[in-house]
């Protein structure tokens, strides 16, 4: 359960104020696959960053399972990012000198899980997203874009988060590969009861979503 109430984000660009997100409110139940669409610069990434506690809103509240994220201490925020949220980025953002397996183990290490459990869980996750065992020890550079995105989804799933926040997860992929990635996310939403919030430019992806939110100049409208 997430309830966003009247959040706004203001940036100052050389003296000029920009309201990247302007008085946005919405709510989502668990296990929903939600798409956020909108033109470039409409504030989609900014909204997602606030939902994932990567940035603080200038105004408003974000209520997750009865707790207000905007009021959390720095230590609580780290815990929130680690255990409640999984991020998937357009350019994958895997750590280049770590293998696929080690990338997936990273959030498990931050959560304080012991080495053996980390390894077996990471292996299971990689298999689950369709990365075969022979690719587990490859560096990101030696994986295709679609494979890298699968690894990053496995990494996002590592600590069984309530939410997966994906910023244009198919933006760098061809349409076929993009579709398989979206199918994967949808399937996970159901099997793990994870809420998926995905920013996308792709209308075919938006068509598969249960909820579609549209951003326009920092304002949100249901579709």
């Amino acid at each position, binding site marked *: 359960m997430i309830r966003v109430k009247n959040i706004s984000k203001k940036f100052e660009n050389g003296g000029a104020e920009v309201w990247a997100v302007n008085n946005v409110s919405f709510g989502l139940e668990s296990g929903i696959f939600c798409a956020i669409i909108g033109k470039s610069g409409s504030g989609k*990434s*900014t909204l*997602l*960053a606030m939902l*994932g506690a*990567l*940035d603080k809103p200038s105004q408003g509240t974000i209520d997750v399972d009865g707790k207000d994220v905007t009021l959390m201490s720095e*230590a609580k925020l*780290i*815990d929130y*990012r*680690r*255990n409640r949220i*999984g*991020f998937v*980025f*357009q*350019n994958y*953002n895997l*750590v*280049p*000198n*770590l293998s696929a397996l*080690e990338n997936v*183990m*990273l*959030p498990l*290490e*931050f*959560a304080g899980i012991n080495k053996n459990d980390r390894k077996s869980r990471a292996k299971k996750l990689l298999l689950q997203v369709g990365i075969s065992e022979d690719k587990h020890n490859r560096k990101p550079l030696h994986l295709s874009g679609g494979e890298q995105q699968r690894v990053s989804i496995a*990494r*996002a799933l590592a*600590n069984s988060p309530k939410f997966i926040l994906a*910023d244009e997860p198919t933006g760098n992929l061809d349409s076929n590969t993009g579709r398989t990635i979206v199918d994967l996310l949808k399937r996970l939403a159901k099997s793990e009861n994870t809420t998926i919030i995905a920013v996308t430019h792709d209308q075919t992806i938006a068509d598969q979503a249960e909820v579609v939110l549209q951003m326009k100049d920092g304002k949100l409208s249901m579709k």
Partner: protein
Amino acid sequence: MSTISRGMRNAFRNGLRTLSITVILAMSIAMALIMLMAMKTVEMKIESVKSSVGNTITVTPAGVRGFEGGGELLGSDDLATIQKTDNVSEVTAIVSERLNSDDTNLESPIEPGSFGERQNNRGYNGGGVPPESSSGDRKFTMPVTVTGIDNLENLSALNMSKLEITAGEKFLSGSEDKIALVGKDLAQKNNLNVGSIFSAFNQEIKVLGLFDAGNTFANAQLIMPILCVQEISGQKNMYNSFIVQVDSVENLDKVGDSISSALEDKADVVSSAQSTESIIKPLENIKSISVYSLIGSVVAGSVIILLTMVMIVRERRREIGVLKAIGSSNYGIVSQFISEALCLTLISSVAGIILGALLSNPVLKVLVNNASADGASGVPGATPGRGMMRMVNAIPGIQNTFRDISAVLDWSIVLYGLVVALLIAIIGSMLPAYFIAKVRPAEVMRSE
């Protein structure tokens, strides 16, 4: 994979960069280490010069240096005066004589050489009476030096750095017997052994022992009981010099002043502190050069690792953002970067320590040569007379001060080196740590 091993792996992420940083850093660590060694070595040398010189005052008759000059010898009343002075713990009296071929059947093992011949032609042969050699019918020989002393343990009074009895035995303090310790070169030249008899001032002297003082000049000498020398040379109760032992260095000046005023202008009083100053000064110059260079190289090392880490952090901004976004604490990321910096400095310090060990001696030699050249020209009258040389030589060990300097490499210095490296790494990681903390995790959302 833990934070630390991740940091260590990151240290090798860019091979070429790792290599170049390691080389530069190793050189600055080697430099720091060499300077540290130089500092320690010189410090030890200063200590040893100070302690070997000790707290002594040399009292000689006014206007007399060695065997030159005029003036009256000192007497036993002077000895008594000095002995009564406050803070004087011991006085060793010396009588020096030179035996010409007229006075003894001994031949000096030292070849006169051009220096000796010149001295001789100028009539510098002690007594002032022109020897027969000047008329050309006899070859000039070097006189044999005799030191009359009571206390054989006082090496500084003997003007020797060691006194090793190679045969026979030492004479006892207070002895009046006509006996002598013979330097090993002198003994060899004259076929003397323990129990042999030779003549001096028309007296028969028995060889009690042979000694090795470690240098040619001293090994051509005789050491005899002071009472015996005074008697046979007809100088009863007369002395050439007193070596005064003062109870502590702090009282050196005070005692020197009271002896000077008590003996008025009868005697020249030279304290060991005065004569060592000129030797210690260049050493202290080396020391301060090393201190500045040490500080300089530590600063240089810190700046190198600092700039490197700043560069690395800037380069990996996005990665830092990702680590934050997937749940790492600032602390975790900072420790990862510190372990990377530590790893770089550790490799560099191993290379630096090896480099430092190899280069320390050559570098120290260069330092010492420059400094001692400066030092020598800074000593007034060091070149002209033998008097000054004798005075300097009277302090055992000093002749060898510069020659004997070599770097001391011990494990404590290697340990220091590692501590220096650690310091460099920590200082070098501080600013980057601040940058790391400032990276906004939201930045990962921005495309490059």
